C-alpha cells in the first residue's frame, strides 16, 4: 500500500463522512466534492488517468457545482433550519450503523480473501482514453446509445416537475 493511496483513501473517506454529518447543506456538498477528489486520486493511483480526470471533470466540476446552484436557488438555509438536531443513538442511526457494519465487514472479509481469477502475473488492462473509447464504440455501443433514451425520459420528467400545468397556472 503506497503512501499516495493512503492519503487519497483518507481524503475520500473523510470527505464522504463529512458530507453525511455536516448540518449546513453547502458544507455537505463541498465535503462530497472533496470525497470525490479523493476517489479520483485512487483512480490515478491505479493508473487509470482518463477515468480519474473524467471523475474530477464530471463529478467535482459539474455535479457538485450543479448541486450548489440548485441549493442556492431553492434557499437551502430554510432546509437546514428545518432539519432536526440529530441524536447520536437514535433507533434509526443505530440500526443503520449496524446494517452498514454488517455489510462492510462481510465485504471486507470477501475482499481480504480475494484471489484473482487467473493467477498469472498479467498486467491490469490499460484504461486510457483510447481503450475506453474502443470499448464504448464496440462492446458497449448499445448501452451508450440507449443512455440517450434514459436522458430523454429524465428530461421529460424534469419538464413535468418544473413546469406548472395549465391547471396550476389558472
Amino acid at each position, binding site marked *: 500500500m503506497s503512501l499516495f493511496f493512503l492519503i487519497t483513501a483518507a481524503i475520500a473517506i473523510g470527505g464522504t463522512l463529512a458530507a453525511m454529518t455536516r448540518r449546513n447543506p453547502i458544507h455537505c456538498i463541498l465535503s462530497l466534492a472533496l470525497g470525490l477528489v479523493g476517489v479520483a486520486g485512487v483512480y490515478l493511483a491505479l493508473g487509470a488517468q482518463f477515468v480519474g480526470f473524467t471523475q474530477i471533470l464530471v463529478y467535482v466540476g459539474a455535479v457538485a457545482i450543479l448541486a450548489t446552484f440548485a441549493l442556492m436557488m431553492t434557499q437551502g438555509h430554510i432546509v437546514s433550519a428545518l432539519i432536526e438536531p440529530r441524536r447520536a443513538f437514535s433507533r434509526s442511526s443505530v440500526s443503520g450503523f449496524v446494517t452498514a457494519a454488517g455489510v462492510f465487514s462481510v465485504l471486507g472479509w*470477501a475482499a481480504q480473501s480475494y484471489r484473482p481469477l487467473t493467477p498469472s502475473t498479467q498486467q491490469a488492462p490499460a484504461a486510457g482514453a483510447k481503450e475506453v473509447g474502443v470499448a464504448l464504440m464496440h462492446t458497449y455501443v448499445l448501452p451508450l446509445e440507449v443512455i440517450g*433514451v434514459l436522458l430523454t425520459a*429524465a428530461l421529460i420528467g424534469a419538464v413535468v416537475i418544473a413546469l406548472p400545468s395549465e391547471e396550476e397556472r*389558472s
Partner: protein
Amino acid sequence: MSTNLLALLPELVLTITGVLVMVLEPVIPAGKSRKPLGWLAILGSLLSGLAAFYQLQIVNAQGTLTAFYSTIQIDPFSIFFHLLIAAVVLVTLLGSLDYFESPITHAGEYFALVLFGAVGMMFMTSSVELLMVFIGLEISSISTYILAGFRKGRATASESSIKYFLLGSFATAFFLYGVALIYGATGSTSIGPIAAGLAITRTPTMAILAVAMVLIGLGFKVSAAPFHVWTPDVYQGAPAPVVGLMSTAPKAAAFAVLLRFLFNGTPMLHGHWILLIEILAVASMCLGNLGALKQHDVKRLLAYSSIAHAGYLLVAFTGTHQNAVAGACFYTATYAAMNVGAFLVLSQLSGFSERIRSIEDFTGLALKRPGMSALLGFFLLSLIGIPFTGGFFGKFYVFSGALQNGHVWLGIVGLANSGVACFYYLRLLAAIYSRPTSDSVAYIPVRKVTAPAAVALAATALATLGLGILPNKLVHLVERATPTTTAAVAVQPTQQ
C-alpha cells in the same frame, strides 16, 4: 433487415413513437385535447407487440438471436416478456386516454413517459449484459418515478413520487454494487461469462455477496418484503392507471432479470440464493397478506396484495429451472391481466380526482354501477385464486412447481396465506354488494365509460377468464421459454 435491428425492433418502434409524441406535442395548440397523441402511443405499442410477434416467427425459424456483441439475446423468454409488456402498456394507454380531466395536465408527456418506460422494461428482459440491464432498469424507474407523481399539487402525489424516487435510487445502488462485485469475482458482467467465471472463481464469498446485493436491488423493484415499505404509500398517491402499469410491467421485467440472472448466471450458487429466495417469499406472503387485513384505503389494500403476490411469484423460483420459468411467466401474465384490470376499474370509478377511496365509499356500489362492480368482483375473485379464473392456475403452477421440487413447507405457507387473503378481498367484495349506507352511493359521481376504456376493461377481463379456462395455450408458450445460455464468451474489443 440486419440481426442487430431485428433484435431491437419492439424497442425501436416504441422509442420512435415516444419521440414522435414529444415532437408533435408542441404542435397541438395549448388547451386542446392531447388525445391524438394518446392514439399515436396506442398505435406504437400495438406495432411493438406485432414486432415482438414477428421476432417470434424469426426465432422459431432460425433459433435464438444475439445482437450487439452479445448484449441482447432474443429467445422465446424475452419475446414472451416483450409481448406481455407491450400488452400491459397498450391496455394502460387505452384506459388512461380519457383519464385526464379537461385542464390538461401534461398529457403528452404522460404518453411519452409510458412509452419510454416500456423501452427500458423491454431492454431489461432481452439483455444478457448486466450493464444494459442497469440502464433499462433506470429508464423504467425514472419514468415510473415521474408517473407516480402525476397528480401534481396533491400532497399524496408528491409523497408518492419522492418516496419512490429516494428509496428506488437507493435500491438501484444496491443492484449496481452487486454488479460491481460480481465483476470482481468473475471478471465479467455478462450472464454467460459470469456462469463460466463462477465455475473457476476463487472468491465465492464475493460472488455470494454480489447475488445478495442484486437480490436486494431487484427485491425492492418487485416490492418483496422486507423491501416493500414504499409500496402502499406510492400506490396510494399515484394515479390509478399508473399503479396498474407499475405494479405489473416493471415487476415482470425485474422478475425476468432475476430468472435469467439466478438460473443462467449463477446456477453454481443455487444452494445459497435459494435460501434467500425462500426468506423473501415467506416474508412477502405473510407481511403482504397480514398488512392488507387492516387497510381501509382500497389502493393501499391492493398494494399490500401486490406484495403478497410478489411472494407467490418468488415461490415459483424454488422449482426446477424449467418449472420456475414456466410458473413465474404464467403467474406474471395472469397477475398482469387481473391487476391492471382491477386498477382500470378503480380509475374508471373515481376518475382523476380519486374522490372514492376507502372501502366504506364502495358500500352499495353494485346498485349504482352493476357492470363495474361485477368486473371488480371478478378481478378480486381471480386475485384470491378461485377456479375458472387465471389466478387459480397461476397459483396452481407456482405451488405445484415448488412441491415437486420438495419445498413442501413453502407450499403450505403459501396455501395458508391464500386463505388469509380471502378475508380482505371478500371484505371489499362484501362491501360492494351490501346495502348502501345513507350517503355512500349518492356520493359516487357516475363517469361514463368511454369506448377505449371499455375495450381495455374487456381485454383484461377476457385475458383473466381465458387464462382460467384455457391455460394450455400460454403454458405451451412459457414451457418453451426456458432461456439457455448462449454466447458464453463475450467478444473482446479488438485492440489496434
